[in-house]
Every structure is written in structure tokens, then in C-alpha cells.
């Protein structure tokens, strides 16, 4: 077992070394071997992840663990340079601002910026067993802010706005019954299609809500409405399924394009 791992591993290494050298020899530009190395590295990692499809293996684990470390550091670095530095330094230190060529913002309330720093440091105390409890102040701030923001935003956008969006007209431009009946056809742009579409929306919203009604047994008329509700929900989930398939395939096309175009050069750009 050990031995086969070793042989397999060396074969993989030799393969990608060869791929690098071939790619480098064929490349142009300032440092062909460096850019060829990067492309080969990316191809190696891509295939390493794909190897998970065969079975979990050390090469996949290597890529997985590397990614864990790289991604945590990546977000940290970006957070530091894009938010902490430009939004905090110009308010707490003139000297540091000058050093980083940032414009010092001279405001009376700058002293308040001590609050997020202190809370942030308290949050970091979570790493300590003894002082970990202090981090609950930072968590309290985070939770309070999110609760306040969500309270209003969800009330307005996902609740009230959704009610008014359900006030749908059954007919587009109403003139008369005669005109309405004349135009009835099974055309996608016709009035019948609009009528059906809007009735389905109103009925669907009402019955869907009934399905999510927990204080009553779903029986009788109520149960029928709830039944209709779950059917509407099933169409919703079907739509979700279809779109998700589309999304996943698109990603695979993206990776295949990388392998076939950028690495192997089989297809033109």
C-alpha cells in the first residue's frame, strides 16, 4: 500500500513536471517557465480536485487543505487592506495615515472609532480559554446590528412589498367585454395568458401561505388549499432544480474550458 502510493505519487509528479517543461518550452513572453509553472500548477490543482470523483485520495486532500489555508488568509488580507486600513487608520492616526499615503480625516467624532477596535479585540479574545467570555460583548454588538438591520429590511422588502406586488390586474388594458372576448386566444402575449398567469400568482401565494400555516390541522377546505399550495411549491422546487442543474453544468464548462484552452491549447480562445 505504502509502496503503491509512493509509485503513484512519483508518477503524478513526473507527469506534471514534464507538462511544465513542455509548456514552458512552447511559451513566449518575459518568463515563460514561470508562467508555464503557474498554468501547470493550476491544472494540477484542477485535476487534483477532480480526482475526488474517483475516490478520496492524498492528492485531493493536499489541494483541499492548501485551499483551506489560502482562502482563510486571502479573506483576512483583503479585509485588512481594503477595510481596516482605509476606514480606520485615517481616523485614528495622522502619522500612520501619512505613511500609508491616506488622507487623514479630521473629525470630532473620530474618538468613537475606539469602539470597534476594542470590540474587535474582545472578539479575538475568543481564542483564549480564560478570557473568551469577553467576546460576548462583540457578539452582542454584531447580533444587535444585524437584528436592527434585518428587522426593518425584511419588513419592508420581503413582507410588505410582496403584498403589494400581489395586487395584480387580471386584464391589461380594459376596454369592454366584447373586445376582451374577441382577443381570447392561446397566444403567449394574449389576454388569456396574462389572466391565467396572474390568477396563478394570486392563488399560488395564498395557498402557499396556507401550507405554511402551523396552528391548524390541514383538513377540509383548508386542507385542499394547503394541497394546492404544496403543488405550487413543488413547481417552485422543480424550477429551482432546473436552474441549479444549469448552473452546475456551466461551472463544469468553465473548468473544462480552462483545461482544454489555457492548459492543453486544444481549443481556440
Amino acid at each position, binding site marked *: 500500500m505504502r509502496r503503491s502510493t509512493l509509485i503513484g505519487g512519483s508518477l503524478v509528479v513526473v507527469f506534471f513536471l514534464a507538462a511544465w517543461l513542455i509548456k514552458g518550452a512552447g511559451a513566449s513572453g518575459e518568463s515563460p517557465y514561470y508562467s508555464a509553472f503557474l498554468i501547470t500548477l493550476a491544472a494540477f490543482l484542477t485535476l487534483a480536485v477532480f480526482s475526488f470523483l474517483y475516490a478520496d485520495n492524498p492528492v485531493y486532500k493536499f489541494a*483541499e487543505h492548501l485551499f483551506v489555508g489560502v*482562502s482563510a488568509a486571502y479573506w483576512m488580507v483583503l479585509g485588512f487592506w481594503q477595510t481596516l486600513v482605509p476606514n480606520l487608520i485615517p481616523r485614528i492616526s495622522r502619522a500612520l495615515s501619512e505613511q500609508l499615503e491616506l488622507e487623514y480625516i479630521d473629525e470630532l467624532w473620530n474618538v468613537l472609532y475606539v469602539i470597534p477596535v476594542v470590540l474587535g479585540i474582545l472578539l479575538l479574545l475568543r481564542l483564549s480559554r480564560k478570557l473568551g467570555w469577553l467576546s460576548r460583548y462583540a457578539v452582542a454588538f454584531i447580533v444587535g446590528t444585524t437584528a436592527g438591520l434585518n428587522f426593518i429590511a425584511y419588513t419592508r422588502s420581503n413582507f410588505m412589498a410582496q403584498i403589494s406586488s*400581489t395586487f395584480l*390586474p387580471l386584464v391589461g388594458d*380594459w376596454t369592454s367585454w366584447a373586445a376582451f372576448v374577441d382577443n381570447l386566444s392561446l397566444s403567449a402575449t394574449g389576454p388569456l395568458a396574462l389572466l391565467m398567469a396572474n390568477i396563478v400568482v394570486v392563488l399560488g401565494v395564498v395557498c402557499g401561505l396556507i401550507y405554511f400555516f402551523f396552528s391548524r390541522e390541514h383538513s377540509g377546505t383548508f386542507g385542499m388549499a394547503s394541497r394546492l399550495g404544496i403543488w405550487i411549491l413543488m413547481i417552485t422546487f422543480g424550477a429551482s432544480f432546473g436552474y441549479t442543474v444549469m448552473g452546475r453544468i456551466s461551472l463544469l464548462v468553465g473548468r473544462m474550458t480552462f483545461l482544454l484552452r489555457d492548459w492543453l491549447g486544444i481549443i481556440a480562445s
Partner: protein
Amino acid sequence: MQQKHFWRFVIGLALMTMATALGQSEADPPVSDTLAVADTAAISVPAPLPVTNLIARDKPNDRGYGISLSWDLSPDDTGGTQSVLGYRIMRSTTPDGPWDSINVAGSGDALYDHIGPRHEGDSGYFPDHTDMYYRVDVLTADPGVAVSSGVVGPVQSRGQWFNTARTVVFLFMIAFCGLVIWFVTHARRGKDLYVRPLAGIEAVDEAVGRATEMGKPILYLCGLGDAAEVPTIASFTILGRVAKRVAEYQTQIIVPCRDPIVMTVAQEVVKTAYSDAGRPDSYNPDSVFFLTIEQFAYVAGVNGIMLRDKPATNVYMGKFYAESLIFAETGTMAGSIQIAGTDEIPQIPFFFVACDYTLIGEELYAASAYLSREPVLLGSLKAQDYAKAAIIVFAILGFLATNVSALGGPEWLAGFVDLFQVRE
């Protein structure tokens, strides 16, 4: 206990009502001047007709430093000689000038909000509570030809304490708060509030038993949301129940977390559950741990655990994104029983087909209320149900009102429909 919360709320309410009253008392009548005087100096293209009906008023629902202007277009803008290129907004502190040019509005525009800087010393500083006069000049291709409207004013800018555009949201908020407090209070008094049974929840106990028989651990995921999110909170409640059962049966639980804060809360929850089950010593702090914050690195980590430890049961409760399918698929490969619940709609179909039980959206919250029998959760669930009933009624009424008024019904019906427009 509930008294204290109630008063906390009442004080908040009173403060807001005061703010409303203050806001209304400050409403200002608009100042208007329909008289237009043409300034006929140096004409080389025919002078267009001036704008009429210029109105300047304090910009409503702002924090000051704003004046709203509106006017009727010059007849030569869209019609007539069509010589109008734009409208220059002019302002002065006296009716006779000197005039400052503020900005130019394009042809066809009949509205302009003049919002000035708030700090003294900034150019164009705009003090509140100071008389201002406005005039709008019609501009043409010839810079020499500009026709002025009459001067309107004085007008003052000021801030409003209550944003009346948001009154409906405010009222709903109050009504819903009332419902929640009412039902929570009722639940606390020991009223039995009915919740219809949910199939996915009964399965949990059975699954823990199975894990014990097999001598394999239970994998519990709190999802990828942060600790403040509702589904994560619901997940904590269900985790508490599962962990308690696990402690009673002396099985093992594994809770890999994607968020450090979630991890801390989950640790707390599991620890408490072990104490409640009377086995605080069996609690292993390493059973709840942080993996990584990056979505797919986390998935890869959990995948690894599933394939290596082959848990008897996987429970997925909380916020899940793209990884739901991989979890469910890998879980199937590992031969685990799977119970899922999430409010992430795109993931429900996958849980639905690959898992043994699935809680759809809100059923997750209901499950958490049902399990804990906690008055707060049950009361909230009731309040939500009533709010839903109210929506069904409003939706049907609004729908009828829209259609009746479209067919020529009375005007107040349209007013009712407009009441629900909350987008600004």
C-alpha cells in the same frame, strides 16, 4: 419577567410617537409663484417661454439641507420651438440677488432637489432655517439667451423627525410587535398553543437510537449561516435536542462549524445538553470544532469526515448553499440516514430527493418551536401565523380592489392599493 420586556417596548414606542408628532408640527406650506417675468436681454434665437408654476418647498422626510423644486416645463421644451436645452437653478438669500447658479437640469426635467453640504465652510454651504429664494432660467443653444422665471421664496430647509414616507412600515411594525408580545405573554402563562406535527422531527429520536446500535457517531451541521441568522438559531435548538439524546444514549456527536461564532454557540449548546442529560463529564469539547470559513473548503472538510468516520446519521439543519447536494450525495455514499431542514429554497429539491426527511423553509422554525416548547418560540410562531392570515386577507382585498378600480370602480379603492407601496 415579561412585564419588564413589555415596558421596554412601550418606552421605545412612546419615543417614536413623539418623534412623529414633532415631524408633523414642522410641516411647511409650500411657497409658490406662478407669475413669470421674461428677462429679454440680447436675443439672437427666439426667446423660449419661461417655466411656470415654480414651487419651492422644504424637501420632505430628510435630515435638513434640502429644498425641492418643481415647475411646469416651458412650452418650448417638448413642443413649440423646442429650443430649450435645460433649466438652470438659481438661488439667492434675498429676493433681488446676487444669484448663485446651483446646477442645470436637463430639458424635459420638471423636478430638482437642491441638497447642500452640511458643514459650514464647504462651498455652497446651505444653512437650515434660513430664508432662500429660487429662480429657474430656461437655457438655449445661445448662451446669451436665458429666460428667467419669477422668483419664489422665502423658503427654509429643515430636518424632519419622522419620515412620513415610512409610516405604513412603522404601523405594521408596531402591529406585529403587539402580536408577538401578546402571544409570547400568553404562552408564558402556560396556554397550550397547538402546532401541527412534523414528520421530520419524530425521525430524529429514531436516528439517534440507530446510531447507538451501530456504534457510530452522529454528524450534525448547523449550516453555513452566521450565529445571528434565524435558521442557525433554529438549528441550535434542534442541536440541543439531538445532543441531549446523544448524551443519554452515550453515543458520539460531531459538529464541524463553518463560522467561529457559530462554533462557540454550538459548543455552549452541546455542553448544556450534556449537563441537562446529567452527563456533563461525557462532554468532549473537541466534538464541536471550527473547520474553515470558506464554503468549499468547509464542504471538503465535512466530506472528509463523512467518508472517514461514516456517521450513522447526518442531520443538516440551517442555512445551506451549493454544498447541499454534495453533502446529501456523500452521505448516501456513506450509507447514513439523512434528515435535513433549510430555508434556502434552491437547496430544498436536493434534500427532498436525497434525504429521508426534509423540513421545508419555515417548517424548520416550526420544528424548533415544537421541540423546545419554549413559550417565546411558540408565541412567535402563533404571531407569524396570524400575520400570515392577515396577509392572505390583504392580498385578496388588494387584488379585488385593483381589479375593481381598473374596471372603473371608486377612487378610494386605488388609494387602498397605494397604501401598500413601500418602495421609496
